[in-house]
């Protein structure tokens, strides 16, 4: 007799399983969890803390806030950030101070850990939310973050 009860129970569980997928089949048009990616680029917005790429924001006078202290370069685990700096003369006080020539950022090496952004004392670098970083030529992945002709905001060392 267990032969027949086996068959009956087996068929019952199979039908219950089919009802689950059947239910999803009927509501699939509205319930699809995939997004039609290249068509929805305008409406696709990342969260504000999303770690896309490290950038250095410049204000309207083309000034950034990086003093060249190199704390981010030391904090980075694998040498993604290289700062090319030199000692120049500060105009107002006449003392020698560091200023940066180029802030080189290797996007190809970056692991997006966020330690550089945490280490920066003046909030010079922040996260940007762009997620389309692929290029055709690998040399385009080595980016220089400070714009040409920009300089440090005055009075930022405090």
């Amino acid at each position, binding site marked *: 007799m267990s032969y027949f009860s086996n*068959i009956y129970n087996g068929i019952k569980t*199979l039908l219950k*399983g*089919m009802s*689950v*997928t*059947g239910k*999803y*089949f009927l509501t*699939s*048009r509205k*319930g*699809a*969890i*995939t997004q*039609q990616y290249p068509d929805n680029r305008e409406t696709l917005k990342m969260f504000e803390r999303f770690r896309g790429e490290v950038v250095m924001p410049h204000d309207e006078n083309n000034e950034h806030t990086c003093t060249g202290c190199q704390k981010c370069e030391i904090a980075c685990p694998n040498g993604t950030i290289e700062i090319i700096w030199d000692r120049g003369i500060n105009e107002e006080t006449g003392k020698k101070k560091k200023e940066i020539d180029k802030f080189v950022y290797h996007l190809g090496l970056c692991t997006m850990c966020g330690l550089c952004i945490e280490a920066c004392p003046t909030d010079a670098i922040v996260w940007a939310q762009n997620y389309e970083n692929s290029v055709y030529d690998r040399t385009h992945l080595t980016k220089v973050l400070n714009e040409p002709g920009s300089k440090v905001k005055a009075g930022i060392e405090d």
Partner: protein
Amino acid sequence: MSIAINITGTIQDWLMNMMPEGVANIVAMVIVALIYLAIFAVAGLYLVLLERRVAAWFQLRIGPNRVGFQGMLQTMADALKLVSKELTGTVKADKFLYNLAPYFVIISSLMALAVFPFTKEFQAFDINIGVLFLIAISSIGVIGILLGGWSSNNKFALIGAMRSGVQTISYELSIGLSLLTMVLITGSLQLSEIVEVQKNGWLIIQGHIPAVIAFMIYMIAGTAETNRAPFDMVEAESELGAGFHTEYSGMKFAYFFLAEFINMFIIAAIATTVFFGAWLSPFGITESIPWLGVFWFLAKAFILVFLMMWFRWTFPRLRVDQLLTLEWKYLLPINLVNIVIMALIVWLNMTIQF
């Protein structure tokens, strides 16, 4: 709609007027064969697309919908891609058998397609042992699988082919016996006779309980025949490679692939003919428009195809020995008992007739 429905008859008469009899026969055969080859190719292509869309809806996503309107040209693009691929072959493979294997499965599918009654007289080959012919044809397909596995000179392919061979020959028994159960009501093996008997009500209603049991057994055995999930241990992707068609690429792979989908359609078409009244409309509503018979036939066949796809995307796979236990210990005894019950019901005139 006064265009004649008897296609083969029309073509033969038209050709008889133009050329002597022997040549007209041969030309008629060639034309009908070409029509069926075209039906085979188109049906295969659109069945693959249907499978992909239906699978996607089960999985909460949208299937291919970019190539052409709603993805209609997707399989065409895939077929073109497959044609352009290099036909690799292993060095020590048996060349003749390796090239011959795909043709066996295609030929068996095409031969089976020829006997279906799509509508009143739209049938290419109305032989008087119709059902027996169909069962015999499906046995020829096994040869193709075994040859393909053996001649690839590949351990995985051979294991896959052996498993598939065992599975197919076991489940043919169940298919044959369940179809035989229905023949007990109709009393004839000829497919157009079977449809005539169903004018008094579809066979699944006429032979109530044993017919429903026979239908369920037929669907299970039918999915096993075509090596579809949940019985697809043979070509299981997460097991050993890709089974018996590991070494095939390009067009030959496309042949195996298409043949699997057409086999699925054939199983569904046999079920609609024998159980659900091939081209008869429910309650005879469109009796007077014979051309709508094609629509009813295709609708019923596609519902059964959808059922087979539903099985595939819901259930896990059975192991090989569990597969064979299912057949020999469960399906076969139930089938035999069912035949006896059906015979009793027919003898005592307890079938439901309208």
